[in-house]
C-alpha cells in the first residue's frame, strides 16, 4: 500500500468517526481495517473521541417533565421512580402492595380507632382533596415549565449569537495576525488574459497565513472557478493550492489561507481559472499574477 493510500484511509477514519462517510467509503474502510490492525485501533480511538465530543457542549438542564416522559416508556410513573431509594423495588403496582405479610398485623389500626367504613370514607375525602390540590399544582407547574422553556430557548439563541460573534472575531484576529506579523510581505497582483482590469492585493506571512482580496474579477460560467496559488521559489516550483475564490456580484473576492508548516519561500502569487471544485495543480488560464518582493523575505 502506498503512503498516499494509507494517508487517504486515515482521512476516511476521521470522517467515519464524525459519521459522514458514504456507504461505499465505509465499505472501503471496513475492508482495509480487516487487514490493518493499527488502522482498526485508530478507528476505535477516533470513534471514542468523536463520541465524547457530544458530551462537551454547554450543559443545559432538561425540563422536569422530560423525566416523566422517558420513564413512561418503561411503564413507570415518575413519582414512583423519584421517591424510590436506588435499587429498591418500589415500582410495583399499588394493588400488589396491599397483600400484607409485611409484619404489621392487618386490622390492628382499625380496631384501635375508627370503624373500617368510616376510615375508608375519611380516606376518600382526604384523597379527593389531595387530588384536587395536586391538579392545581400540576397546572401551575406546567405554566412555570412553559416559561422556563421560553427562557431557555432565548438563552440558546443568545449563545448562538455570541458564538457567531466569537467566530468572526477569530477570523479578524487571524487577519490581524497576518497584517502585524514581523515577516509579513505585501504582494500586488495585476490582471492579465481574460481579466485585464482585475487587481488584487495580499499580505502574507509564512507563520501567520495569507490574507488575500481581489477586485473586478469577471463573472465565470457555473462550471468554472477562480483558484489562488502560492508559487514557491526554485527552478521547477510546484504551486501550493491556497483556496478557491468566490467573487460577489461586484467582482470582489477575499480569502484567508492558513499557511502549511514549513511552506517554502514564495516567489509569486497567481490566480487561475479552473474547473468547479478546484484542482490540485493549476491547469487553466492565468488571470492575476504578482511577484513576492524578495528584499525582506524571511
Amino acid at each position: 500500500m502506498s503512503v498516499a493510500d494509507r494517508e487517504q484511509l486515515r482521512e476516511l477514519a476521521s470522517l467515519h468517526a464524525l459519521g459522514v462517510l458514504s456507504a461505499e467509503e465505509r465499505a472501503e474502510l471496513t475492508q482495509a481495517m480487516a487487514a490493518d490492525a493499527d488502522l482498526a485501533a485508530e478507528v476505535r480511538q477516533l470513534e471514542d473521541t468523536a463520541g465524547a465530543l457530544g458530551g462537551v457542549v454547554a450543559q443545559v438542564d432538561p425540563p422536569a417533565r422530560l423525566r416523566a416522559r422517558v420513564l413512561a416508556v418503561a411503564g413507570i410513573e415518575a413519582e414512583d421512580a423519584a421517591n424510590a431509594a436506588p435499587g429498591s423495588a418500589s415500582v410495583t403496582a399499588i394493588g400488589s402492595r396491599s397483600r400484607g405479610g409485611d409484619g404489621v398485623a392487618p386490622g390492628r389500626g382499625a380496631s384501635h380507632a375508627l370503624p373500617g367504613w368510616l376510615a375508608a370514607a375519611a380516606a376518600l375525602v382526604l384523597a379527593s382533596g389531595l387530588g384536587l390540590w395536586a391538579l392545581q399544582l400540576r397546572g401551575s407547574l406546567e405554566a412555570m415549565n412553559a416559561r422556563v422553556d421560553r427562557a431557555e430557548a432565548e438563552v440558546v439563541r443568545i449563545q448562538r449569537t455570541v458564538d457567531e460573534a466569537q467566530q468572526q472575531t477569530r477570523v479578524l484576529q487571524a487577519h490581524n495576525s497576518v497584517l502585524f506579523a514581523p515577516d509579513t510581505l505585501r504582494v500586488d497582483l495585476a490582471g492579465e488574459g481574460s481579466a485585464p482590469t482585475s487587481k488584487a492585493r495580499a499580505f502574507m506571512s509564512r507563520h501567520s497565513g495569507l490574507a488575500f482580496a481581489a477586485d473586478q474579477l469577471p463573472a465565470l460560467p457555473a462550471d468554472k472557478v477562480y483558484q489562488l496559488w502560492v508559487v514557491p521559489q526554485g527552478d521547477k516550483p510546484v504551486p501550493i493550492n491556497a483556496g478557491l475564490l468566490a467573487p460577489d456580484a461586484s467582482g470582489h473576492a477575499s480569502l484567508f489561507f492558513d499557511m502549511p508548516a514549513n511552506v517554502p519561500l514564495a516567489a509569486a502569487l497567481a490566480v487561475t481559472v479552473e474547473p468547479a471544485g478546484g484542482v490540485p495543480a493549476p491547469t487553466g488560464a492565468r488571470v492575476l499574477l504578482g511577484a513576492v518582493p524578495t528584499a525582506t523575505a524571511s
Partner: protein
Amino acid sequence: MMWLLWAVVRMAPQKDPGDAGDLEAVRRMAEGDGQALATLYDRHGRVTYSLALRILAEPLEAEEIVQDVFSQAWRQAARFDRSRGAVVAWLLMMTRSRSIDRVRARRAMPASSGDPDVAFGLIPDAADGPERMALTTERAARLKEALDTLPLLQRLPIELAFFEGLTHVEVSDRLEVPLGTIKTRIRLGLMKMKDAFLGGAS
C-alpha cells in the same frame, strides 16, 4: 452474574466507576427493570438533552429526541455490546444521529446514515483489541480544552460535520475550501483531539 463480573474486571484498569454503574443499569434494563431506566436517565438525561439542544436549538424537539433515545435504549438494552464503547457514548451517538436527521429533514437534505449501529462501531467484535476509552470527567475536560484551542480552520469543519450534520463534501461547499483541504483539516484537528482525549492513558 458472570457477565457483570466480567464487565467489572474489564472496567477495573480504567478506574471509572461511572461506566460500571451504567453497565449495571443497562443489564437491569435488559431484565425489564424500569427503575434502572430511571437511573440511566438521571445520570445522562442532561448530557443527551444538552447535545440534542445544541444541534436542534429547539427545546421541544430536543425533548422528543431524548425520549426517543431512552426509549430505544430501553428496547435494545439486551443487545448493548460492551465492546462498542461506553454506555454514555452509545447514548450520545444515538442522540446525535437522530438530531442530525431532524436537522437535515428540516433543510430538505437527504438523511445521514441514521442507524448509529452503522454510523458508529465498525468493528463487530473488539474483545481482543485495546480497551475502549470511557468518557470520564477528566477526559471530557481535556477534550473540551483541545476543541477550544484548535485553530479555527480545523475546528470549523469538525463542528460543521459533527453538530450540523454536513458531509465532508457539503462542508467543502459551505466553506468554499477544496475537499482535499477539508479532509486534511478534519484529520489534523481530530488527531489533536484524540491525543488530548487519550491523554496520559496510553
